[in-house]
């Protein structure tokens, strides 16, 4: 059994990876993959991302997927070579419009004009739900937001050390990352990145519910002639046909009730107010 530390997956938004331009070799061993240092200072080898597949193509030699988060896309590619074969077969089951959760290692490529391109070599891919996507979004945003606060502390004190910053309540690694950010990306606009990410995530998180509430309200309105109201089962069935999960229906009903748009005539029967 192996007890060395597992390289954890970083949950970062595509924009944070896309803006990266710093590579750190991991020691002498050439077999070891280098770390990518992102503008927020995150040391990345492995990432995990949850999002919508916007493109899926498969050719003889490789299978490619583009997966989107609220601010952009990750490019995922598995070749037919070696240990990738199993995950490649799994990848081929996914199509555009599916929600997926992907864990993989990031490789970089430097173009002739010096720009970096990043590709994720998947280790695992799973079918995801809207719920997982929301959690991933929320956690990734929380990590990025906390980083911005740490970065501001580093900017305030030019002699910031890991110990100074961690004394303010940040994890040691988090402090190290914040120091990386300020030293390796002195001209980067951290605030702008966070603002973009935070706005997009908020929209993404609430957007679906807003849509679902409209649909559920419409179902109740259409079938509301009956004085007994519309049954919960009917609403779920109607919404399912339009691609809305039961969980989202529940949230929509709660929301509509709180907003005063609908009321419960009797147990699990709803009517428009």
């Amino acid at each position, binding site marked *: 059994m192996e*007890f*060395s*530390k*597992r390289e*954890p*997956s*970083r*949950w970062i938004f595509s924009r944070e990876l896309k803006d990266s331009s710093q590579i750190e070799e991991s020691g002498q061993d050439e077999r070891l993959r280098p770390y990518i240092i992102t503008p927020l200072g995150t040391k990345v080898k492995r990432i*995990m991302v949850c999002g919508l597949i916007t493109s899926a193509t498969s050719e003889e030699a490789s299978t490619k997927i583009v997966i989107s988060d609220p601010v952009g896309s990750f490019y995922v590619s598995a070749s037919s070579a070696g240990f990738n074969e199993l995950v490649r077969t799994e990848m081929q089951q996914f199509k555009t419009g599916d929600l997926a*959760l992907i*864990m993989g290692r990031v490789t970089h490529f430097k173009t002739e004009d010096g720009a970096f391109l990043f590709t994720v070599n998947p280790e*695992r891919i*799973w*079918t*995801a*739900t809207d*719920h*997982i996507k*929301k*959690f*991933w979004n*929320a*956690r*990734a*945003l*929380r*990590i990025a*937001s*906390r980083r911005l*606060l740490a970065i501001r502390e580093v900017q305030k004190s030019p002699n910031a*050390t*890991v*110990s*100074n910053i961690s004394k303010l309540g940040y*994890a*040691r*690694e*988090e402090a190290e990352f914040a120091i990386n950010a300020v030293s390796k990306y002195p001209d980067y606009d951290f605030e702008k990145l966070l603002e973009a990410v*935070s706005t997009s*995530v*908020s929209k993404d*998180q609430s957007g679906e519910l807003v849509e679902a509430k409209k649909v559920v309200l419409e179902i109740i309105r259409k079938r509301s002639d009956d004085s007994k109201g519309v049954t919960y089962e009917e609403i779920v069935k109607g919404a399912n046909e339009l691609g809305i999960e039961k*969980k989202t229906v529940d*949230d929509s009903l709660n929301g509509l009730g709180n907003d005063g748009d609908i009321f419960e005539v009797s147990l699990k029967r709803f009517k428009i107010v």
Partner: protein
Amino acid sequence: MKSKIGDIKEPSPSVELTGKIVSLREAKSNRNGAESIYHYGIIGDDSGTIQFTAWNMPSSIREGDVVELKNCTARIYNDRIRLTISSNTEVVLRPEEHMEVKRVYNEFRIKDLNLSDPYVTVSGTLSAVTERETEIRGEKVKLFNAFMDDGTASVRISSFGQPIEEGSQIKITGAKVTEFNGRLSLTMGQKTQVEKIKVSIEKGNRQYLLWDMVSPVGNVGFTGIPVNVSDRSGIIEKCSVCGKFAEGSVCRDHLDAAVVKDVSCYFTLEDGTGSISCFMDGEILKKYAGIEGDIESIDPVEVKQRIVKSLESTVVKVEGNMSQKGESFRLKVISIGTVDDKEVQAEMQKEQ
């Protein structure tokens, strides 16, 4: 010129001092492929204490010895000042000298306890107190074991001589942080001060991000996505006497004991800031994975599939007791559940 330990605050290429070895531990280093043994610990005098690393420690030196050090270096390591004892350092034993060491006890929350700050003040509630007799240097002493919880985490505590009471809330000044079987532990001696206090414990606030954890403590929780459910997960056989795995239906310690079947699983939890190896078994796992009835009668392949299906590609909230093996943390899961949309919403509000 001789330095007082409490005055060593800046790096210096050559330090001379006399101090008492408060703690001394051995470790292996694997620098450039060559394995070597070194020592580390704490040395103190009447002005304070300091950590040291010794690449050349005379084998006659023991904990409690007073030594004179010439030509050692003070360096910043991990943001702390530390002494390095190298082959250039002269280490002379001073058996005739007696020395009282001044100890500063910093107050710690249990979650933040760590081996680098071994002398601490901690407050909390005691539970699962047991008592037995033990011998220290030929003398019979009562040993009390318990768990202490302060609302941030729990830790095992051992008290040599001083009785501790079940359910009592106490503040202990001068406990020593140690490590036992990969878990953090507190030890109290006769000199440790104990006072009864009222501890206010905030409930339900034990969910942490993995990178906030500094030591293997108990009763802490994480929310994340399980990955890599191990192939070894599924139905296992346990010894009916000791409860350990019985490979090939035989316990190595109890050859004649009957074996019982149980379910267990290993998985890695990723939370975006780190990963932790989790172990879960028994009723907790059965309930979570929806495995009902007599496991003898269920197809083992199906049991395994249910476990994998219940864990992969879901968001889970786990609580348990941590331990450490090498550089990695592990978690023995004591509760597991899913996360609802409200909790996801709450996650959005954090740090915003």
